[in-house]
């Protein structure tokens, strides 16, 4: 594996290494996230879920994927 072709990202506080030209759609598929039940932030900006395949990740990008849980 050539390190040059890899980038490091942080998803929900966890470090991941992915290939260059890795899109948000690729990430969601990799994580098997149910897209209609979550919201996604890229570097603190909300991402339009319809455009995930057009957003390619960069080194050190921070992604947050959130959903609903029980709360008062």
């Amino acid at each position, binding site marked *: 594996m050539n390190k040059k072709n890899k980038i490091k990202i942080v998803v929900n506080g966890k470090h991941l290494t992915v290939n260059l030209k890795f899109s948000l759609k690729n990430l969601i598929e990799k994580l098997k996230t149910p897209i209609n039940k979550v919201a996604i932030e890229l570097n603190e900006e909300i991402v339009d879920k319809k455009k995930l395949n057009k957003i390619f990740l960069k080194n050190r990008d921070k992604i947050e994927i*959130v959903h609903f849980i029980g709360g008062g």
Partner: protein
Amino acid sequence: MKIDILKIANKKFKSRLIVGTGKYKSMKECAKAIKISGAEIVTVAVRRVNIVDKSKPLLMDYIDPKKITYLPNTAGCFNSKDALRTLRLAREIGGWKLVKLEVLGDKKNLFPDMIETLKSTEVLTKEGFKVMVYCNDDPLMCKRLENSGASAIMPLAAPIGSGLGIQNKTNIKILRHQTKVPLIIDAGIGQASDAVEAMELGCDAVLINTAIAQAKKPLQMAEAMKYGVISGRKSFLSGRIISKFAGSPSTPKKGLI
């Protein structure tokens, strides 16, 4: 009898009991309690998806947001910035605009930070959110929230999860008198009689989580709260008798042998 409808931000509800979905033993129990309580609105929180363990059950698999109105909250937010970020994300998950704003200022008692709460209400209202606001029972701050476009005023009865019941009835009465949007007791309810009392004071609804979820028998308590709210509401609407310090026989004296 005329159907008694609760209207929040132009949405109509028959139930005046809103329940929280936290602190239950399981999602199954939570879903059952909601069903028994008859609640049509439930509060939910926004948190990170567990990207390591994907086997964890999802709330949406147990409580269908098409049947029950999800009210996303900002629990755990201690400033306006975090609260706004949380609710914008909640809206993104599924288009929710009806939200519960809760900006805390005191980690021990979980009292709201009213300055941050007011600031957040103003911003959210401008962004098109319908904001139901957790607040203290101060009539002046509650009026300011209402003037900022809050869709419901939700004062605490006592600290969150304390189960102490309504501590300041006078303020709740004053709030009832001045509040034009729905007035909902949020936090502090401990038992069914507290829910009855809130409704008898003229509140439009009550929001209960801990008192149901942490009761020894949550499902039975859910039912007790359901009837407590119905009972208190009907009592309020019925026009109670004037209390007096003398006895008055219920049985006529005429015909007494």
